[in-house]
Structures are given as structure tokens and as C-alpha cells.
């Protein structure tokens, strides 16, 4: 079942060259929706219990004891579902694309397999292979279908994140060598954390930098704005919605349970890096006039909350209930950010499609010609600034309550300061609404026509899911909760 979920897109991609031209887009949509249905069925099968289900462990490279070991639990299921939803939304959004559709669809189907595989991987080497393949895939998406200074942005993205993956590999090798017997298997590494003392710290440093570049956290974030600005809308949505999660997922899946010692020792570093990302990302976003760059910087801000919460979870002396709340909030934030920022990037794509620019100052009053588009931008903006009733609030409330509630001086102070982030985010999104959506018409407003049907069909499910999580959060939280309890217990060892 899990193998089918992971490799169905790749299989369709291989078959796609044989599909007649007009059916390519629909085949792509069909494959993405079918995969989404399979993930949903898997979620139902897993239920809200703890532990790993749908596990497969096949010998792969026995010489280094690396296997094709995959499975799903309360952490991977929400992210697998998010991946399937976003890829399906991108497929629908790209229905009207005319420029090299077939290659675009093949590349996206390949990327979908890579992303699904990463979130299901239970072997470090397998994780690493998917991690690197995602970089390669996205490089070509930016290079071939991007705009602006795309080759430069694509190269910067590739080199920066590839460098990050190499540092990550160093960390993985550290874990491999530290384990007795040597292994890349995540389950075994989690059961008996391999490294203690200084070596553990160095390994955490390598893994932290590797994942931190991908996440990204300040100061390793400068590849993100140009990559987003020059990527096609669907590429940005996947890059922000799914691929940034690989970093934060790695923290929860690898760094915390396998290096609990080091994580506890350096929890303050995580708190501070998280806090700086939150405030710095929000403030820099506030100063942007390019709306896509602005959304890119809000990603830095949103990812900062996750690291902050995970740092708080490392304070073993703190209240366990609060730390569980923080981890649940962090995972919820991954899902919420994927949905909302994915929608925001698709909306940026609509603006670019109509007017050919992202410059806030040249729009204004687009609610007049395009009321539905204006509503969608408004809802997505309020979701991103954490309005209750939408998913961002559920995530951020838990992060703040959990981080501050951990009850040590460091977590209370950093948590309370991080709350300022939601005020700055509110200011910057109101600024976007004020300048682009409301007010008198601007220079390019006449060109912004209403959302078309494929765009609407891609955007509405994303925002509807955000609303669902915002109003009935238990559908998501009950799945995550056992996992958070497990992670908190593992870190506390």
C-alpha cells in the first residue's frame, strides 16, 4: 500500500510520454487525486493510535546495513497528506499551462514520489537519497519554467541546499559510526541513541546546519527569496509547502529522538535561532514591495515558530504537558504553513499571470474587478497572520502556550518575545491588502481579471482545509498527539 502511494506518481510519469498530448494534464490530475485518495485511506487505516503502520523493510545496501525501510506514523501521515494535497492542487492549477506541459507533469510526478518517499523513509540513507533528489528536481523546475533571473536563482538554490545536504550527510555518517552495530536504520537509532558527549554535539551541529539550510532558519535563508521569486507558481507552492517541511520534519524525526542528549544540551540555541527567525523574517517581510519575496520571508518567520517549539521541547525540566503541546503545535504548523503558503504562492501566480509583476505598488483595488480573487487573498492573508478559525491559529497558539508554558525562564522569555511575530505578520498582511486589494485602483488593476475555474479549484480546497483545521482541529491533533507524547518522552531520556 505504502509502496503504491510512493511510486504511483513515478509510474505514471514513466507512462506519460506515451499519453496523447491533450490527455497529459488530465492524466496528471488523475494520478495526483488517486494518490491523495490512497493517502487518505492510509490515514483512516492508521487511525489515531501511536506507533508505525504500513511498515516495509527490504534489504537494499546490506554492506552498510542500509535498507528500504518505510512506514507511517502520526508525524509522517499529516505530511504525506499535505504533500498529496499540494501536488494535486498544483496539477489542477496547471491545467491551462501550455508551455511544455508533458515535461512539467513528468517532473512534478517525479518530485511527488521523491517527497512522499522522504516523509515515509525510516532509513537515513533512503532519507538522504530522497532529500537530494528533491533538490535536483526543483532545480530543473526553476531553471526551465521560471522567470526573471531564473538560471542564477536556480543555481544558487541548488548549490546552497546541496551544500546543506552534504553537511547533513556528514551528520548521518556520524550517527552511523556512533551506532553499535553500525546502521542507518532510523528505528534502531531511535531505540538506542548512539552518541553522547562532544561527538553528539558535533553530529547535532552537522545535522542542524544541514536541516537548517533546508528549513530555512536565519542566517541560512538567503537562497529562499530568489528561488521563490523566480520559480513558477506551482514550483513555489511545492518548494514552500512541501520541501521546507523536509527540514523541520528532519528535526522531529532525526535530530530530537536520535540525539536527545545533545538536543537537551543545546535547546537554548534552538530557542534563540527560532526566535531570531521569527522576528527577523517578519520584519524583513514587512519591508518588501515584491509580494512573492514578502511571502517567502513570512516562511522564514513561520518556520521559526517550529524551531522555537522544538527547542522548548528540549527543556526536560519543564512541564511535560506543555512540551507536548509545543511539539503538537510545531507539527500542526508544518501542515498549516503548507496549506496557507501554498495558497498564497498560487495567488501570487495569478497576479503574475495577469499583470506580469509582483510589485505591490502597481496594484490597488483589485477587489473591484476580481471580488472572488480578493476574498481568496484576504482569507489566505488572515490565515497566514494566524486568525482563529483558520489553521495558523491552532498551530501558533499551541506553540506559544507550549513554549511559554514549559515554565523555565528561557522558554517563557523567548516564547513571549516570539508572540510579537504575529503582530508584525498582521501588519505586513494588512499592508498587502491595503495596497493591492483594497483602496483606489492602481496602475495595473485593470489587467487583473477574476480567478479562472482551474485556479479556483486549486485554491478553494487548500483554504477549506485550513478552515477545517481551524474550526475542528481534533481531526488533525488526535493523530499528532500520540507522536508528540512519544517525541517528548524520547527527548527526555
Amino acid at each position: 500500500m505504502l509502496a503504491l502511494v510512493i511510486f504511483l506518481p513515478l509510474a505514471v510519469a514513466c507512462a506519460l510520454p506515451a499519453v496523447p498530448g491533450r490527455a497529459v494534464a488530465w492524466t496528471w490530475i488523475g494520478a495526483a487525486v488517486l494518490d491523495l485518495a490512497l493517502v487518505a485511506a492510509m490515514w483512516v487505516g492508521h487511525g489515531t493510535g501511536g506507533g508505525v503502520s504500513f511498515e516495509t523493510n527490504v534489504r537494499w545496501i546490506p554492506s552498510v546495513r542500509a535498507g528500504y525501510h518505510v512506514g507511517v506514523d502520526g508525524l509522517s501521515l499529516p505530511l504525506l497528506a499535505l504533500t498529496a494535497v499540494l501536488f494535486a492542487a498544483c496539477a489542477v492549477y496547471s491545467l491551462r499551462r501550455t508551455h511544455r506541459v508533458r515535461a512539467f507533469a513528468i517532473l512534478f510526478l517525479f518530485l511527488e514520489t521523491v517527497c512522499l518517499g522522504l516523509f515515509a523513509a525510516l532509513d537515513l540513507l533512503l532519507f538522504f537519497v530522497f532529500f537530494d533528489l528533491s533538490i535536483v528536481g526543483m532545480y530543473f523546475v526553476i531553471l526551465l519554467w521560471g522567470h526573471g533571473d531564473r538560471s542564477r536563482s536556480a543555481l544558487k538554490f541548488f548549490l546552497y541546499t546541496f551544500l546543506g545536504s552534504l553537511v547533513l550527510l556528514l551528520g548521518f555518517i556520524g550517527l552511523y559510526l556512533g551506532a553499535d552495530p553500525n546502521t542507518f536504520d532510523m528505528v534502531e537509532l531511535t531505540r538506542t541513541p548512539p552518541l553522547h558527549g562532544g561527538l553528539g554535539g558535533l553530529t547535532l551541529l552537522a545535522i542542524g546546519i544541514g536541516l537548517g539550510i533546508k528549513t530555512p532558519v536565519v542566517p541560512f535563508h538567503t537562497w529562499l527569496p530568489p528561488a521563490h521569486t523566480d520559480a513558477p507558481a506551482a514550483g513555489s507552492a511545492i518548494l514552500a509547502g512541501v520541501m521546507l517541511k523536509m527540514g523541520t520534519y528532519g528535526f522531529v524525526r532525526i535530530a530530537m529522538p536520535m540525539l536527545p542528549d545533545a538536543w537537551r544540551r543545546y535547546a537554548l540555541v534552538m530557542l534563540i535561532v527560532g526566535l531570531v527567525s521569527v522576528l527577523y523574517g517578519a520584519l524583513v517581510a514587512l519591508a518588501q514591495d515584491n509580494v512573492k519575496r514578502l511571502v517567502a520571508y513570512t516562511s522564514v518567520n513561520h518556520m521559526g515558530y517550529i524551531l522555537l517549539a522544538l527547542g522548548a521541547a528540549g527543556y526536560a525540566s519543564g512541564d511535560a504537558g506543555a512540551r507536548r503541546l509545543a511539539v503538537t503545535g510545531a507539527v500542526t504548523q508544518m501542515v498549516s504553513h503548507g496549506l496557507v503558503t501554498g495558497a498564497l504562492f498560487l495567488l501570487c501566480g495569478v497576479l503574475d499571470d495577469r499583470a506580469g509583476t509582483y510589485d505591490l505598488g502597481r496594484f490597488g483595488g483589485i477587489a473591484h474587478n476580481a471580488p472572488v480573487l480578493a476574498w481568496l487573498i484576504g482569507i489566505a492573508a488572515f490565515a497566514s497572520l494566524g486568525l482563529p478559525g483558520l489553521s495558523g491559529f491552532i498551530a501558533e497558539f499551541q506553540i506559544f502556550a507550549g513554549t511559554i508554558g514549559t515554565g523555565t525562564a528561557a522558554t517563557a522569555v523567548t516564547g513571549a518575545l516570539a508572540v510579537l511575530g504575529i503582530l508584525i505578520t498582521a501588519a505586513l498582511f494588512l499592508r498587502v491588502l491595503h495596497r493591492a486589494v483594497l483602496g483606489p485602483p492602481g496602475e495595473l488593476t485593470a489587467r487583473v481579471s477574476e480567478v479562472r475555474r482551474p485556479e479556483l479549484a486549486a485554491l478553494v480546497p487548500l483554504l477549506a482545509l485550513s478552515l477545517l483545521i481551524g474550526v475542528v482541529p481534533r481531526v488533525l491533533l488526535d493523530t499528532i498527539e500520540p507522536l508528540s507524547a512519544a517525541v517528548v518522552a524520547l527527548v527526555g531520556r
Partner: protein
Amino acid sequence: MMLPGWPGGLAVDGLSAVLLATLAVVLVAVLVHAAGEKFGARFYVLMLVFAAAMAVTVTAADLVLLLMGWEVMGAMSYALIGYLWPDAERVRSADVAFLTTRAADLGLYMAAGFAVAGAHSLRLDDLAAAEAPWRDLVAAGVVVSALGKSAQLPFSFWLSRAMAGPSPVSALLHSATMVAAGAYLLLRLHPLLAATGWADTLVSWVGALTALVLGAVALAQRDLKQLLAASTCAQIGFMVLAAGLGSVAGGTAHLVAHAAVKSLLFLCAGVWLSVLGTQRLGELRGAARRHRPVGAAFGAGALALAGVPPLSLWATKDEVLADAGGGLLAVGLAASVLSAAYAAKALLAVFRPAEGGAFRVPLLESVPLAVLALGAVVLGIPALAGAWGRVLGVPEKSDVRVAALSGVLAVVTVAAVAGVRRVPEPAWAVNWLWSERVALAVAVRPVFALARALARFDDQVVDGAVRGIVRGGRWAAGLTGRRVELRVDGLVDAVGRSARWLAALARRPQTGQVHMYYAQAAVVLAVLVLVALLAG
């Protein structure tokens, strides 16, 4: 229960029930009235979502649900203030209102965290039992949020901005319900305030001073809606004072009576705005005489606002002041003199004789006015009869001397304002203490400057460092290309050259001439002989 493992939910007790009933009545009155004007579907969607959020706020038993309702109210307030969105200035007002209230809301987010740390619970009932340092922090967060939502000092200026919204919006959100939510929260959490030992005193003084200072601001206004907005801040100040004093019955009574009075006054202002096209007091001269029923309703509301006995706000305000003593009582009485003065100012402005014919108001618009006017007149009776204490299950107290004194003061003040005909209008009061300008200078501009500076820093230093490393890499590549590569390559070249030279050397004897080969053979032979001799 929104979050697994954190009990809570919605629950209705006496206080919630009173608030829900007030919300329902004002909502119906405002929506019926608004049906007379032509609003689109967006208006009703936003108003109904607001009402749902307010209902959640007043019934929430834990901080998650409370904050959810609380913030959605703020967002709906934003959308309704900016209802006429093509006007950039109205959108700006909506921005100011939302950001100011959200800045205060941060207090509730932090309070939730402190509650988890100190009480291991998010339930409102458990907050007062939190451990020592955390309890004070929870109280501080709650107080800041409540003061922000209720437009108390120093946050009052946003309510002035909120007047950019349509009048029915002001009647529901920015007078009767949403802004009263802060006072509601403080009334509900009075045990927490009392437990800290400082928060109740602080809240009492902020409430009393807001009642006094914003009373003066109201008195100086020349615009009817601005006058009513400032008076809303001042009247909610009495409720906040009640919350600080623990006069839950008095505060609730004042909240309910004020909701009827103020929504009535705003709806009347809206009628005149849509018929006469103005809300400036100078231009509204005689407006009340041109349509008697609306004029009478406004008159009843304004007299109630003035605290003239036996109308509603006289009775409820005195129930609040009955619990105050010393300085607070003096400030409270001064504030009630000011409320009599500004109410009289508005009343006289619209009742002054002036020419202009009668106008028609649709029945749909005037029926709600009659209902609210009735409320404004009679809602003091439950307070006089001690009914609030029974509904809420709290002790209730009244003081005949205070009531008589404030009643006399109100009547004398109204008469005095009618006599002098001109009231002082100092610039600080007209401009709402310049508090928006102060907020701009102290908070908004520095943050924007910091944001721009950080954006430059991000481009030039953080990304510059990355570019520097790339340049460094390229320079190193160039260096190895030119220098090291030259040497290494030179070495290889040298080997090649010497090989070629050796080859050329070796080729030289290969001349193809037989005598040369003989000579070479002879030389080699000689060498071999020599070697054999030496070795042998």
C-alpha cells in the same frame, strides 16, 4: 474541547446569559434597522460572523475559545470598518483599529502560556489559583488585552478610527457589544485580579481615569459620532472601574443599559447621516425637530447618557460608584459630571430650533429605535430593584447618598450646559490626546525603519556574505587555474619537453648512413670493453 488534553468548552452562567441576551437584542435591532438601508450580502455575512464570535467570547470557559472569539471579533471589526473599501482612508482606519487591538491581544496569547506554566490549565476558573509569579503575569496579560479591546487608556484612539465604519456597525460593535467584551472579561476574571493584590487597583484606576479623560475628549468633539465614540470609552471606563472594585452586578447592569443607550444613539446618528449627509454637530442643528419620533428617541438616549434620574444609566452608574471610596469616588463623580455635559452638548445641538422641513424615515428603521429607547429609559429599574445580584448570584449594593448626589449633579450640569451654550474645546481633547500620533511616533515608525534597515542588512550583509563566499570560491578557482595549475601543468610540460628533447637527441644518430652506425658500434664496443675491464 479544542485541544486534546486541555479541558474547556462553552458554558453559560448568569453573566454569560445576560451578555448573550444583550447581544441578541441589539443584533436584531441593528439588523432590522439596517434592512432599511441598502447593504449587500457582505455586510450581513460579516455582522453575523461577528455575532457568532461574540457569543463564543462570552460563553467560552477556557482561554483557547475565548481567544478565538476575541480575535475573530477584531477581524470582523476590521472588515466592517473598511466596509467602503475603495476609500483608502477608511481602509487605513481599519488597519489602525485591527493592529491596535491585536497588539493588546498579544497579552492574551502570553497569558495562555503563563496559565499553562502556572496553573497547568487553560480554564478561566483555574486562573486565579495559578502559582505565584505566573498568576501576576496571567493577570497582566489579561488586563492589557481587555483594556485594548475596550478602548481604555492608552488604547482609546482606535475607537475614534473605528467610526469610519457604517453607523449600524458602530451601533453593534463599537458601542454595545465588542468593545464591552473587555469589561466583560475583567468582570468574569475579577477573582484573578483580586488574587494578585495589585491588578484590581490598577484596573479600577485605569477605568476611572478613562471615564474622566475620555469624558473631556467627548465634550470637546464637534462630530456626533466622534462624541459618541469618546463617550463609549468613558462609559466602559465605569464598567472597568466596576470590575476592579468587584462590583460585578453594577458593572453588568451598566454594560446592559449602556448597550441599549449607545446603540440607540448611533442608529439615530446614522439616520441623520443618511438623510442630511452630515454628522457634524454644527450642521445637525434642529435635526431632532425635523422627525419627531427619531428626535424623541435620541432625546431619551441622550438624557439617559447624561445620568439624569430616573433613567437607566443614572441607576446603574451609581451602583458602580456605591462600591468606590475616596479618590476613585471623586474621579467617578467628576466623570459623571462630564458625561452629563457631553450628553447635553449633543442633545442641545440637535434640538436647537432651525429651519428645514420634515423628512421621512422608513418604519423598518424607526421601530428598533423605539425598542432601544424604551430600554434606555427602563433598564435602570432592575438595578434599583436589586435584580442583577439575583441573576448573577453576587451581592449587590447601592448608596442613596451617592445616587442622589450624582442625580443632582447631572441635572445641574445639563442645565448649566444649556445656559452657557459654549463648552471648552481644548485641542488635546479634540484630537483624542494625540495618542494615535504618539503611537505612530513611538511604535509604528521605528518598527518600519527597523524593518527597512534589516531588509538592507539582509541583502547586503547576510546574502552579501554568501555572495562573498561564492566570489572567494571563484577567486580560489581562478588562482589555482592561473598559478598552481600553471606550475603543475608546467611540470608536466617540462617532462614532455625533456622527453621530446631526449627523443630528438635519440633521433640524431639515426641518420641512415652505414659509416655512422659503424662508428657508433665501435664507440659502444669501446665503452663495453672499458666497463668490462673496470668491473673485472
